[in-house]
């Protein structure tokens, strides 16, 4: 089976700031080091790692926002660096993103409806009045009553509401895979649960695939079928959620599991 979205042996190097001079090339740092992962249609793949592990850079490469220094990103088997314009348009519509802070990725001067209408107009080519109806349908889907939310500006929304708008905007393009980069990390526990529930339901009803980037192992098994653990730019462990969480092979995965807080006060005594 051809994977929906695949990174094949990708690496990404960044120049180290301030390291170069007139005569010397800048030193390069490897953010992502020969990584291969694949997202299958309709599956949830969790990409787990801490800040600086390269997981966001990998996500950006899969989105086509950052070009790999080497290796390929394939969409339905086709290298996006060599894809013709029509295939690239396809890719940009089918692969969408939800960021940690949707507030920062929403135009502060656009109303909720305007933000969601943009991909409807440009990715799906809907006429303005069609787009308007579709905006309402999308807002319903993310449980924001259109009547109340259509004309609000981002600063008038709570963190959870902004994240719902971010999800609605991603859904507007009718994607096949959504890359969600820490979509709930900035939210309160109770709101986090609501957003996860929403994302889970959407995945089930729309046969979406997710690449779920997170540092929190707590959400992984409830949400993902497979897990890839990233550490210092490399995938150190990959497998089904059950296998990785019940029988972690890599020392870093074990450390991550031990550090994940559990709502059981009796662990205190174990210290």
């Amino acid at each position, binding site marked *: 089976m051809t994977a929906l979205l695949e990174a094949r042996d990708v690496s990404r190097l960044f120049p180290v700031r301030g390291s170069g001079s007139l005569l010397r090339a800048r030193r390069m740092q490897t953010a992502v080091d020969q990584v291969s992962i694949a997202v299958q249609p309709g599956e949830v793949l969790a990409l787990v790692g801490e800040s600086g592990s390269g997981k966001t850079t990998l996500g950006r490469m899969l989105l086509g926002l950052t070009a790999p220094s080497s290796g390929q990103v394939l969409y339905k088997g086709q290298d996006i660096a060599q894809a013709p314009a029509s295939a690239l348009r396809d890719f940009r519509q089918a692969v969408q993103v939800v960021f940690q802070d949707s507030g920062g990725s929403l135009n502060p001067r656009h109303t909720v409806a305007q933000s969601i209408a943009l991909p409807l107009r440009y990715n799906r080519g809907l006429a303005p009045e069609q787009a308007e109806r579709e905006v309402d349908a999308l807002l319903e889907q993310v449980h924001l009553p259109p009547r109340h939310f259509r004309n609000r500006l981002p600063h008038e929304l709570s963190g959870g509401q902004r994240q719902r708008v971010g999800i609605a905007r991603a859904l507007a393009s009718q994607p096949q895979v959504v890359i969600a980069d820490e979509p709930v990390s900035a939210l309160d526990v109770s709101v986090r649960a609501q957003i996860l529930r929403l994302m889970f339901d959407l995945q089930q009803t729309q046969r979406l695939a997710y690449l779920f980037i997170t540092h929190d192992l707590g*959400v992984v098994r409830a949400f993902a079928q497979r897990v890839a653990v990233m550490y210092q730019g490399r995938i150190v462990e990959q497998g089904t959620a059950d296998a990785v969480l019940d029988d972690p092979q890599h020392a870093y995965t074990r450390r991550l599991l031990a550090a994940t807080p*559990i709502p059981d006060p009796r662990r205190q005594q174990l210290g």
Partner: protein
Amino acid sequence: MNSGATADAAAPLLDVRHLCVDIAQGPRQLRVVEDVSLQVQRGEAVGLVGESGSGKSMTAFALLNLFPSPLARVAGGEVLLEGRDLARMDAAQLRSVRGARVGMVFQDPSSFLDPLMPVGRQIAEALVAHGQVDGSRARVLELIDLMELPQAAQVALKYPHELSGGMRQRILIAAALAMKPALLIADEPTTALDVTVQAGILKLLTRLRKELDLGLLLITHDLAVIAETCQQVHVMYAGQIVESNAIEPLFDRPAHPYTQGLLRSVLSPQSRAHDLFSIPGGVAIAGQWPSGCRFHPRCPIMRPGLCDTAVPELGSSGQGVDRCHLSGAPEAIHAWG
């Protein structure tokens, strides 16, 4: 009680009684914290848990009158620290308490550090501000050491941007503890950090609490963090404490439907898809608290004619107290089914 200068040895380190906080909104006063009472003993970690907008941070600011806005003020109640009422102190008296008897750390370490000053000097500032100039350098190195940061002398010379988020938080804790306070108030100290870094900070706080016999008031939205760190818990909702108990009974037998819902929405690596649970609706905002029990519009066992009209008091149930009309009733034991 003895009104002398020395505190009663048996009295709690921090005794907050019926604290109320108002925010001025034009001509009217908006009550954001209502009738909050809690105690912290020496060597004890007490958790204050709630969602954004529950008033938990406002409570913390109120303790030291450190409100982020001049519109907020303590509108009632007492804040007794070692027997002295902080709520009645003038600005000069409060300055001698802040940093000296009570230290504070907050969520985002970067915004509390000066980017242009080496971190060692910033720790020393806490000492100098309280007149301890002599030996401050040695004390700073001792503090950095106490924070489990290697090579204290080198770390002291670094600027904040040269340190990781976890190291910056350790520097802030060092500054907060410079004057050997009896109480440390930590407001979401690990929320912006990676889990492995968070685990390190929580472990450090627990070690410091035990070694220095420190009272710790930990404010967070994450019950799992509370479970790992605290002995007592207070759950806040819509400006009020809705449940208080010792850690084990609170996690074993949460009485208030809100606490039960909050506990169920915590995910751990053991959670499965069918565990994805959330309390419907959102936190009511200050000034628009619902009538009766403030949680009633979201409550699965709301009894019409009672919960939406009568205001519940904090009443004892088992070991703890909770603010639910139906506390103890069969349907309230597993409110969410």
